[in-house]
């Protein structure tokens, strides 16, 4: 019933401009750079007296969250409001009925309210694609996380953070640490970092949490943390989902920290100017010790504020698409 994740042409209009933002796959380097550049201009808005620009004045944006998330929903809401859009929030519990039908019914009802954009989070991979295929022309869909598939705005705010600190992507060695297998964040990050042409991309984690076909994603796989982060410019820690503990994929939190937890001591293996990132919220003492999370290499709180600028960029680009006869002179 759902669209196959990866049917990415849906995202672009006839001129190759962004219509929906569903996945990093198939967007290409230039679109990603355009998003980062637009985010750079929006970053300044947060520093002003009036933290608002009239870019999406009169537009209605609907946060359609089938999976709870305070932080992501709040930053999307704040981004929409800083663009002067009106925002409605819907938190919908999916577990009850047959999902395909429920989703379409919900969609038709909300469309009747003349919504211009849906920001969708759903526990099923492909849900945002499915919605994008069924919305009326002119309505945009932004994926705020679908199952294990993608979380493209999180990946783009990570790219923005890296660019702010390191400038050029091409010489960088970057390591992603943790549960790669179940992480939609990691999947989107890997696509983005490959498109932006980093020098080397590594994934580090227990064998049970690294996809067997990881090699085909253009990454080097490591199972030893210190070996994996040797000489890297950027370390991206992933959140360990506690529910994975019960599935026998992991020993215990304590043991995980012993083997793959990031400590100040281990951090010495990386480059002296390494930055440490985490999509939040952190499990202190599991993925990393507090000395690292709050230490001089950590850029975790910057990621949160850049998240607003990046989401402003994506929303305004999707909703301001030119039709061919309207190209400026």
């Amino acid at each position, binding site marked *: 019933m759902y669209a196959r994740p990866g049917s990415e042409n849906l995202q672009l209009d006839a001129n190759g401009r962004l219509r929906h933002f569903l996945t990093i796959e198939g967007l290409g380097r230039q679109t990603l750079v355009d998003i980062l550049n637009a985010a750079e201009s929006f970053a300044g808005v947060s520093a002003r*007296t009036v933290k608002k620009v009239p870019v999406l004045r009169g537009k209605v944006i609907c946060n359609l969250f089938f999976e709870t998330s305070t932080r992501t929903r709040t930053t999307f809401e704040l981004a929409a409001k800083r663009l002067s859009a009106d925002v409605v929030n819907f938190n919908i519990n999916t577990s009850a009925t047959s999902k395909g039908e429920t989703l379409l019914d919900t969609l038709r009802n909300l469309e009747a309210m003349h919504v211009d954009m849906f920001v969708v989070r759903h526990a099923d991979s492909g849900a945002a694609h499915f919605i994008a295929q069924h919305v009326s022309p002119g309505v945009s869909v932004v994926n705020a996380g679908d199952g294990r598939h993608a979380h493209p705005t999180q990946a783009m705010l990570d790219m923005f953070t890296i660019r702010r600190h390191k400038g050029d992507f091409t010489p960088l060695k970057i390591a992603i640490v943790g549960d790669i297998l179940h992480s939609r964040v990691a999947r989107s990050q890997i696509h983005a970092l490959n498109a932006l042409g980093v020098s080397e991309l590594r994934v580090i984690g227990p064998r049970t949490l690294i996809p067997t076909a990881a090699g085909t994603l253009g990454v080097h796989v490591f199972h030893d943390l210190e070996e994996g982060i040797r000489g890297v410019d950027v370390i991206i820690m992933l959140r360990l989902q506690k529910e994975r503990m019960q599935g026998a994929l992991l020993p215990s939190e304590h043991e995980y920290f012993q083997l793959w937890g990031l400590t100040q001591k281990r951090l010495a293996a990386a480059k002296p100017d390494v930055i440490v990132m985490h999509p939040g919220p952190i499990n202190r003492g599991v993925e990393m010790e507090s000395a690292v999370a709050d230490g001089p290499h950590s850029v975790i709180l910057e990621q949160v504020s850049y998240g607003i600028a990046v989401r402003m960029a994506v929303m305004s*680009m999707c909703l301001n698409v030119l039709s061919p006869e*309207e190209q400026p002179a």
Partner: protein
Amino acid sequence: MTETSPFLQHEAILDLIEGMAREIGDELASLGIEQPAMVGIHTGGVWVAQRLHQLLGLADPLGTLDISFYRDDLTRVGMNPEVKPSKIPFDVDGRHIILVDDVLQTGRTVRAALNEIFDWGRPASVTLVALIERDGRELPIEARVVGLRPTLREGEHVILSGPDPLDLQIATSRQRKRG
């Protein structure tokens, strides 16, 4: 279809800007304004403002505005991803601001710039200066100091390129686009 022909070259434009600087100095004196701050509108307005800022020896660093987010035709022309961040490196509240644009035509760019300035704070006053002023005003906006007022025919536009050298060209388009 657009054709361009040369209009003014670097040295002549610098002469215009020097004349503007003198005139701005006189205007400020007559208005009793001391220590004004300056803001240029991207892109051409910033090039003119950089030279005026230097000639007037202003204390505060130059502010720059990219008014793309404030355009009234944003929904029709779409957003340019190359929007430059606006930077106003001084407190706008209570300041006398000289706003600099390259070509004043419809007045819509200046309207957008005024809106953005007020989102940074409440200035004491805003004085508009423009390198080129031409006909075609669609809003009640006038410049206090102008470098040159050329007479142009229907469909002709003045375009400034730069920053070094500055160059003014007249472009002739078959149909009138946005101003």
